[in-house]
Structure formats: structure tokens, C-alpha cells
């Protein structure tokens, strides 16, 4: 397998585009409001921290991994042209995106700590999931590690979902892709509307679906927020990620040129 060469190429490309996404996001979230304030002559009331959300790097990471996890077929085309098969393509892509995930989460932690310390010293925790799971164990270290794992798994779930959508779209030609991209959100929207309607008639919280969702996130009515069961999201997140990656792998093996 040419996994090393493939991984190194993918990682280099991902880092480059990841950097660009960061730059554009900062430009859109920080510099743009600054310029608008400047143009409107309200620079004296412009406060840097008002426009810098604590979740910014986490949102960028989630968005990035979803979108770039979803871009599958173009990478495959290039690799098969260069004598590299589908399996190596999938593994090298997964390894490169996982590396981005870990590095990105490291940046999130750093940013969270800096934000908490210097930018907006409110009582927000460094990792958002601490609000739900930060007090499950008696040890602070165990709680931090558990919340870190949950955060990483949450982003991995987003990445794996993007990969499944991308590899599914990769099986269709451009015309079919457009139909799916336009049609699927409409179907999902209708489905959501039906669920909301059903919820109005009978609260979904009282059905098995509500119970299942609460079980997946480790929420128990007897337990206070912050003490939710950390093992439930770890197990359900791991299962979801593995299943999604297996689906994406099987779909990637079906890629072909021409489509």
C-alpha cells in the first residue's frame, strides 16, 4: 500500500485548506464587524470580545470536517489516476482527517483557555460539554479526560456523517447529485415539520424516541445537569462513528471512473 505517500499528500492539503478556513472565519467574524464599525464611525464602541465567540474554533472544526469529509469523489479521481486504489484512498483520508480533528481540538482547548483567562472571563467552562458531564466523577482529571473524549467523539460523529454523505453522493453523476442536494433537505424539512406536529399532539418526550435520545446522551431525570452519565455518549458516539465509517468505506469501494 502507498498509504504513507497518500497520507502525507492528503494531510498537507487538509492543513492548507484548514488554515484558509480559519483565516476566512476570523475575517468574517472579527475583521468584518470591525470594518463596519469603522465605516459607521462607531469604532469607539467596538469591543473585540463582543464578536469573538468562545465556540468559534469548535464551529470551524466541525464545519471543516463535515465539508472536507464529504468531498470524496475528487480525491478518489486523483488517486486512481496516480495508481492508488480505493482502500488506500479511504484509509489515508480518514487518517489525515483524524489528525486534523486532534490538532483542531488541541487548538480549541488552547483557545478556550485563553478566552476564559483573557478575553471573556465569565464562568463558561473551557470545554462546552463540561456543562453536561463535567462533574460525573469525583476526580477533576477524570472529568476533564471524559469531557475531552466526548467532545472529540462528537466532532468525529460530524466528520463521519459528512463522509457518508460525500461517499454516497460520489456514486451519482452531477445531475443526480444536484437533485439529491436540493431534494433531501426538503424531505428532511418536511420530516421535521411532521415531528414538530406530532410533538404538539403528543409530547415526544413521552414516547420511546424521547427515551432513546435521553439514553444516548446519558441524561437521567434523577440526575442534575453536569452529572450526566459520561459512558452513554462515549459508547453511543463510538458506535455511531464506527457504523458511519463502515458505510462510508463500503460506498467508497463502489466509486468508479467514469461515474
Amino acid at each position, binding site marked *: 500500500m502507498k498509504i504513507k505517500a497518500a497520507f502525507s499528500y492528503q494531510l498537507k492539503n487538509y492543513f492548507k485548506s484548514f488554515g484558509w478556513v480559519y483565516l476566512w472565519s476570523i475575517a468574517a467574524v472579527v475583521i468584518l464587524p470591525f470594518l463596519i464599525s469603522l465605516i459607521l464611525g462607531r469604532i469607539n464602541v467596538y469591543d473585540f470580545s463582543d464578536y469573538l465567540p468562545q465556540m468559534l474554533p469548535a464551529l470551524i472544526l466541525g464545519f471543516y470536517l463535515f465539508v472536507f469529509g464529504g468531498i470524496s469523489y475528487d480525491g478518489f479521481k486523483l488517486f486512481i489516476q*496516480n495508481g492508488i486504489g480505493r482502500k488506500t484512498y479511504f484509509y489515508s483520508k480518514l487518517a489525515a482527517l483524524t489528525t486534523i480533528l486532534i490538532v483542531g481540538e488541541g487548538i480549541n482547548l488552547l483557545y478556550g483557555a485563553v478566552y476564559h483567562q483573557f478575553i471573556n472571563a465569565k464562568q463558561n467552562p473551557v470545554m462546552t460539554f463540561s456543562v453536561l458531564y463535567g462533574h460525573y466523577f469525583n476526580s477533576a482529571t477524570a472529568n476533564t479526560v471524559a469531557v475531552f473524549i466526548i467532545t472529540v467523539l462528537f466532532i468525529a460523529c460530524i466528520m463521519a456523517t459528512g463522509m457518508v454523505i460525500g461517499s454516497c453522493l460520489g456514486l451519482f453523476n452531477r445531475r443526480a447529485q444536484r437533485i439529491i442536494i436540493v431534494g433531501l433537505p426538503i424531505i428532511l424539512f418536511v420530516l421535521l415539520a411532521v415531528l414538530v406536529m406530532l410533538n404538539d399532539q403528543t409530547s415526544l418526550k413521552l414516547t420511546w424516541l424521547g427515551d432513546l435520545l435521553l439514553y444516548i446522551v446519558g441524561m437521567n431525570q434523577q440526575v442534575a445537569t453536569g452529572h450526566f452519565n459520561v459512558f452513554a455518549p462515549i459508547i453511543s458516539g463510538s458506535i455511531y462513528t464506527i457504523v458511519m465509517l463502515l458505510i462510508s468505506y463500503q460506498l467508497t469501494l463502489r466509486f468508479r471512473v467514469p461515474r
Partner: protein
Amino acid sequence: MVKPIKITHVSKTFGKQQVLDDINLTIEPETIYGLLGRNGAGKSTLFNIITNRLPLTRGEVTIGGQSVTNNDAVLNRIYLMSEANLYPSRMRVEDIFKLTKQLYQGMDEKLTQSLTQQFGLNSHARFNKLSTGSRSIMKLIIALAVDVDYVILDEPTLGLDANHRRMFYDALLDSYAKRPRSFVISTHLIEEVSQLIERVWVLQDHRIMIDETTEEMLNKGYAITGPINDVSTYTAGLNVIGHEELGHLVVHYVYGDLDNDRPIPDTISISHIDLQRLFIYLTNQEVAKVEN
């Protein structure tokens, strides 16, 4: 030691449409092949199957007993230059060369540079800014410089003018002489490549109709010219694949052995025909049916 590519009982259907039917071929190392076939005969499909771009319906493609399916070790020994543009559209030519070097076993940088200069290709240009001819040139440079044992060229001269085509044929022969490896060339400009190819495959009706050395094939092709009656008498029972009428003279094209016991009238002349004409008549089903 380089092992041959074995194509065994390969069939391919798209829905209900049969494109390839029980293809059996061997691509030996260090040989130049010509795959000839009419439009839609399945040449590109066969190439896509050999390089695992398309899955096959039946059969297998192996190198040294190893299947090509998702097998980098063998896929990395084959380069397919085709009309399909699989490179990222915004990538620069020089970056495509670098990437090819990185993902394949290597690339002859000197040859790449010299061919880039020779063909006048702008290596700083982005792939999507290149003309059809320049894209072909870029892919041909990769095909000649990349370190592989098998180079497959599907319509390699698409968009190239006569000068560039000549330069390419010279470069190919030069590259082959310096580092012998296998080339499989599919083109409609048969006359131009007839001097290059050592073995000919003709794909017709989804099957391999001819698999012979170029010399053997050319030796079997005859043009028998003379008055209609004399020619018709002489060619009766032979495999006449086509004919042309020139006033009161007629030419019968025959593929196969002539009957040596049959006396040759003074009024007729027998000569060999070129590969292109042979191909045209062999694959012209209507004429062949009438004559047979």
C-alpha cells in the same frame, strides 16, 4: 522481473448493454501494442477495467497472479493516459508533475523538463487554463516520464497538431529505447502509429477479433486488382473483406492465406495493404457480410 498483465475472461455490461464479452489478452513486458476498434467498441472501457477505474462484470485482471482491484502494488505499475481529466482543475502543471512523482515510484525529472520545453508547455499554468492539446501534452509528458512498467495511451494525440504528433512519436520511441516497457496505444490515426506497434488487437462486436503481431497481420492482407471477372474468379472462396471499383477494374481486399495452388492470371496484380485499410475493411461489418 516484470510480469505480464493477464486479462482473463473479462466481460462488462452497463445495465443490459454488453460492452465487452469474454476478453482474453496478455500484455507482455517491453512490447508496444495497438488496440484498434471503431467508436464505441469498448476500448476505453477495457482500459478503465485494466486500471481498476471500473469494476468488471466477469473475469479478472492480474499481474503476477495478483488482482488489480484496489491493489496499489500493481496499480502503481500502470499509467493510463486518457481523455478523462482526473487532475484537480486548479492545480498547476508543475504541481501535478510533483504529485505524480510522489504517488508513483518516481518520475524522470530531466525528461519531464526537456519535454516540457520541447512541447512549449507552460508548467506554471493551472490545469483548467490549458487547451485540449496542452492537456494532452501534459499527460503525455507524465506518461513518458513516470516510472511504471505499463503505459496505456487512450487517444494520446487528441488535440495535437501534426508537428506535436510527430514530436510525440519520436519522444515515445526514444523513451522506449532508453527504458523498454510496455505501451498500449489506442488511436484512430492508425497510419501514424503503424510503424510503432509490434502487436495488434482489433476489438469488434465486444470481442477481440484479432490478436497478432503487426507483421503477421500485414502479411495476411492482400489487395487483388484487375478486371472484374478475373479478380472474382481468383478470389472465389477466399476471405474477401472488402472491394473497390475503379472503372472497369476492381480491387478485392483479402484477409488470410491465398490459395497457392490457384494460378494467378497475368491480368491481375497482388500487393499487400496497409494497416489502416485492413482495419477499415475488417471492421466494416456491412461490407464483410455482403462479401462473406
